[in-house]
């Protein structure tokens, strides 16, 4: 970089510090290369992403995650033989994969929820999910509070919960509303319209509008959050978030099969007697938007929001409860002594 002029230039930073107090050195120092140094360290360490898939069985959760990361990561759960029990209790299944792309390592953990909304009486079928999320926060907190703790605590906290909505005309079912109410309080929830190849364009637009109205009506906070005053983001990012929010939820189709379109291209998609669907075609489904949103623009933000917002809220609650317990015990002990 060339030599810069001394301090008269107003500099805008994302950290929001006072512009006039920033000094710009007369000769080039070179501390701006810290970004590359950080990058090298982080690349060596790798990133962890934990994604939870929530939705009734048969909505294409496993297929979508395989399509998103372009590899066969998760096997669809289901009753493949008649000898399996009919009613499954909701369960948590975690599969881990380490993926590498251009020397960047991503530790991906997929948390599948077979049995969600599958029984005749689905009351509290969301409890195992909430318990899992809270348990991960708890585990992280304990490791953090440990007197001799590890250098880098393995992050198993759920960064993103993809909630699959069935492609109906009415939007959220009663079960969806209840489950979402609980989930949006503790984890970043990204709603997705599953199997949207069954919807006409008109039905899709109607469903999106219905869902957005329902989110507002039931006060469900979906990721990305509408924080006007979030000082971590630039104004472009805030505007981008607003655009994304108007497009939510994404209507997606997942497919691992490779087909040849009539034009002769080989793409991932589905072929039916009346047409072929190309998963990456934005006129047919919004898979590309979801993929870019999750992996290319908001991946780091998901991890950060989980850590700074949800985990902090959990931590505050736990530690104040702990302090109150200790205080109560101390006062009762002192009462017993006196």
């Amino acid at each position, binding site marked *: 970089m060339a030599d810069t002029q001394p301090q008269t230039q107003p500099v805008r930073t994302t950290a929001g510090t006072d512009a006039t107090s920033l000094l710009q050195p007369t000769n080039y120092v070179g501390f701006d290369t810290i970004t590359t140094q950080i990058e090298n360290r982080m690349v060596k360490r790798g990133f962890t992403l934990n994604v939870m898939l929530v939705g009734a069985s048969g909505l294409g959760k496993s297929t979508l995650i395989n399509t998103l990361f372009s590899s066969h990561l998760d096997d669809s759960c289901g*009753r493949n033989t008649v000898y399996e029990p009919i009613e499954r209790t909701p369960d948590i299944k975690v599969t881990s994969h380490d993926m590498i792309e251009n020397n960047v390592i991503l530790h991906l953990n997929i948390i599948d929820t077979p049995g969600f909304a599958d029984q005749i009486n689905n009351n509290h079928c969301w409890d195992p999910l909430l318990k899992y999320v809270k348990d991960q926060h708890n585990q992280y907190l304990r490791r953090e509070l440990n007197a001799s703790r590890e250098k880098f605590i393995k992050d198993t906290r759920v960064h993103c919960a993809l909630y699959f909505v069935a492609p109906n005309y009415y939007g959220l079912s009663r079960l969806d509303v209840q489950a979402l109410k609980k989930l949006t309080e503790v984890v970043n929830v990204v709603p997705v319209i599953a199997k949207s190849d069954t919807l006409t364009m008109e039905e899709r637009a109607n469903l999106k509008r219905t869902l957005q109205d329902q989110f507002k009506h039931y006060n469900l906070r979906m990721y990305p959050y509408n924080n006007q005053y979030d000082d971590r983001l630039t104004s472009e990012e805030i505007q981008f978030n607003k655009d994304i929010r108007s497009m939510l939820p994404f209507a997606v189709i997942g497919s691992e099969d490779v087909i040849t379109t009539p034009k002769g291209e080989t793409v991932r998609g589905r*072929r039916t007697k009346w047409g072929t669907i190309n998963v990456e075609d934005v006129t047919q489904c919004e898979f590309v938007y979801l993929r870019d949103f999750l992996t290319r623009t908001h991946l780091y933000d998901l991890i950060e929001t989980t850590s700074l917002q949800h985990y902090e809220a959990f931590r505050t609650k736990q530690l104040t409860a702990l302090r109150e317990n200790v205080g109560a015990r101390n006062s009762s002990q002192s009462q017993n002594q006196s």
Partner: protein
Amino acid sequence: MIIGETGTGKSTFINTLCDEDVIPPGNTSFNGEAMCIENHSATIFEGGTKINLDIVLTSGFGDSIDNTDSTAKLVDYLETQFELTLKEECRIQRTPHFKDTRVHAALYFIRPTGKGLRPLDIQCLKALSARCNVIPVISKGDLLTEEEKKLNKELILKHINAAGIELYDFSSCFEDIEEELPGFNLGQMVPFSIVSGTERKLIEEIEYKVRKLPHGIVRVDDPAHSDFPILRTCLLGACQQDLKDTTHDIYYERYRTKKLSEASQKREASGLAKTSAKTISAK
């Protein structure tokens, strides 16, 4: 009778079947708390004859978080219809033109998930198959590719056989079906996978009923695209009389035998009690 969860396409199916908007689209709202059973009627012209179709629609089935009593309500409805007919039969002076409200066929709409039947489906189908003709139908067939359709049908049949559910047997009217739809093996077609749509489009100078999807146009009337025309022919044409006969001869008789034997057992029990009371008082 048409049974299925909200959003499985029951109203669209009825409208497509009757060629008119019997149930106005977008009508079935989701705010009703409990499941309710609605009656609609329509007139269809099939093969030159006028058919009065009475449609019983279950709205709200399987929509609550707790669905343990949904099946019970359905069974209740079916048995009430049998009861009405039984009472009418036993009357000394019968009403002329008694309207037969017994359910001749129950179309059960299954979601096209590719995972077969859910516990609620199995519970309901078991209860229904003991009381009326059950025809399982996979709705929204436009979701499935050819292979998925085949796999799904096989899986559902396996589940049905494992649970011991009796479906309506189409083999009794095979000859009639052969006449109207040559070349279709009905035994392999159950459950039917249908696509319903009420829009119309001109393709190659023939007007078809279609469903316009972003990636293609599904011809509802085309047996290659959806099993809808086959189902329609079976329901309204070839198997219509057989459905009514089986309802009367098998299911209604079953109910009647059960009811009357229960009644006679009660009388015996009370008769015994009376005779034992008499003997005690005589002593």
